[in-house]
């Protein structure tokens, strides 16, 4: 993990999309007046003829992208996660997922680390919404390298994809040319006492928590669940069985997100102690990203405490 350099996944997305669009003329990019923020502006600069601003109209954004995909284009539609998955939910359902069209949906500014803009702009249910739709794939990159791979992989895959991106610069976890596997959990750190399943920027926080725990003699494994759907069920069961306890960590509501997805896998198949970290059925609020992470218990110290609480159950 490189402490020196931090890159927001939205920045990695903009660059990766621009590079890919330059190579592949089937790629088109659409945005709803947030291209400077979602970084789809990079694609607009690289391939202006294949960039379409639809104005502040997220519903139209999705259905226009759907129409383009029927003509053989590979549309990447970008906006804030809260609007693109919420305002346009039914367009994603009926114009994209129901006909299984080849539309890629990029939701940036996901989670509470949007920060000062506050609760209205912090997507805390987008994973839940997208995961519930048949035919949808849900990807959450943990860093810039994962984002680059996901943009490429999403374009190669035929079907709807949701890509969850953040504004908050996060540490680089993966080496530049890491070979990721679609639908597979990534072990970042092996351990024997508990496994922490994380996604997005929480992956770096989980690694940091594992360092803190190691200093206390607790061996925590950390896994990046970058593909939340289809979920690597076998991996989740194996790791939980191996460690005997599990914790999920996400910058999202614990209702419907990674925590719920893992709980659905473990239910009836594992009696290992298990807990979920995330927003406890609440919206976010204004504040600096760092202050918000601490306030909602998503900083490394609080995660380490949560791990110890779960382990106490294990020993009981």
């Amino acid at each position, binding site marked *: 993990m490189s402490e020196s350099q931090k890159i927001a996944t939205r920045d990695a997305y903009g660059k990766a999309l621009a590079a890919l669009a330059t190579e592949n003329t089937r790629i088109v990019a659409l945005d709803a007046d947030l291209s400077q923020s979602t970084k789809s502006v990079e694609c607009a600069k690289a391939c202006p003829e*294949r960039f379409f601003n639809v104005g502040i*109209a997220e*519903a*139209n954004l999705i*259905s*226009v992208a759907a129409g*383009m995909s*029927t003509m053989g284009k590979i549309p990447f539609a970008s906006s804030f996660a809260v609007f693109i998955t919420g305002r346009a939910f039914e*367009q994603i359902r009926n114009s994209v997922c129901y006909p299984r069209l080849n539309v890629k949906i990029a939701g940036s500014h996901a989670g509470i680390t949007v920060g000062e803009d506050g609760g209205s702009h912090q997507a805390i249910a987008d994973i839940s919404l997208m995961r519930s739709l048949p035919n949808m794939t849900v990807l959450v990159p943990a860093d810039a390298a994962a984002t680059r791979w996901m943009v490429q992989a999403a374009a190669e895959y035929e079907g709807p994809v949701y890509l969850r991106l953040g504004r908050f610069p996060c540490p680089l976890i993966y080496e530049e040319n890491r070979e990721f596997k679609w639908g597979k959990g990534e072990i970042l750190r092996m351990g024997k006492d508990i496994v922490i399943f994380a996604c997005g920027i929480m992956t770096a926080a989980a690694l940091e928590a594992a360092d803190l725990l190691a200093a206390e003699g607790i061996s925590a494994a950390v896994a990046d669940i970058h593909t939340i759907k289809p979920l690597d069920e076998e991996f989740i069961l194996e790791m939980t069985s191996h460690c005997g306890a599990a914790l999920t960590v996400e910058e999202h509501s614990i209702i419907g997100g990674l925590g719920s997805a893992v709980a659905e896998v473990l239910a009836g198949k594992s009696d290992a102690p298990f807990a979920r970290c995330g927003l406890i059925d609440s919206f976010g609020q204004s504040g600096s990203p760092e202050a918000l992470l601490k306030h909602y218990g998503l900083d490394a110290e609080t995660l380490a405490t949560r791990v110890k609480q779960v382990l106490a159950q294990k020993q009981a």
Partner: protein
Amino acid sequence: MNFANAEQYALQMRREIIKMLAASGSGHPGGSLSAADILAVLFRDEMNIDPADPQKADRDRFVLCKGHAAPALYAALALRGFFPVEELSGLRKLGSMLQGHPDMHKTPGVDMSTGSLGQGLSAACGMALAARLDGLDNYTYALLGDGETEEGQVWEAAMLAAHYKLDHLIAFLDHNHLQIDGCIEDVLSPEPLPEKWRAFGWWVLAADGHNSESIKQALREAKAGSGRPVMIIAETVKGKGVCFMENQACWHGTAPQPQEAEQALAGLYSKENSSAQA
């Protein structure tokens, strides 16, 4: 199947619509019958489509924005040879290629899955944008309901089409004045529709939606090239062709009972001669 003209084609479509709705026991006759003549002109005469190659790349596209009028689209496609007419009796039944609302993966000739009102015109805009990128000279057609224009997304699409000057996008408005809960003017008036579309930057034309010559004349004007997307506001009658269904909102989404279907078909089969002369 050969038909002497679009009128004969539309008449047979209406018969098939009644037959398939009676067989399924559910569905939407009113708005299917009001759209029949427009679809007859498009699918018999106007569109560059090939039943032997439903996916050919340079074909004209059609989006049935008011997806509940699926029986009209299915009849138009079957009579054009996209699939056997016998399939029509499977409408809305388990395992059928004919879903309650159009499904592009199940039915040959359907270019976009629709059913949720307000989304179709946006998809048609996407098709027209992509066609332009590919240098195609094809047309993208869309058919909207008048009640459907109460959906805000329709106007998002209207702005986009005008902004991007999608002059190969030709939309029809099936202006039958009725929606499920009553007259559009009473439920939530979208009027004045011609003025609104004009204000949104479209080239607006008027047609008699039950007169094929009037529809064709509007299409000729639409293709003359205005540099703008075209909206043809087609004046229609909901339930057209079945006397007891005409102008009745209650026939929006109710299938005819066997006796009613018999009565409707008797009327439609008696029209053979008068319609052939029209």
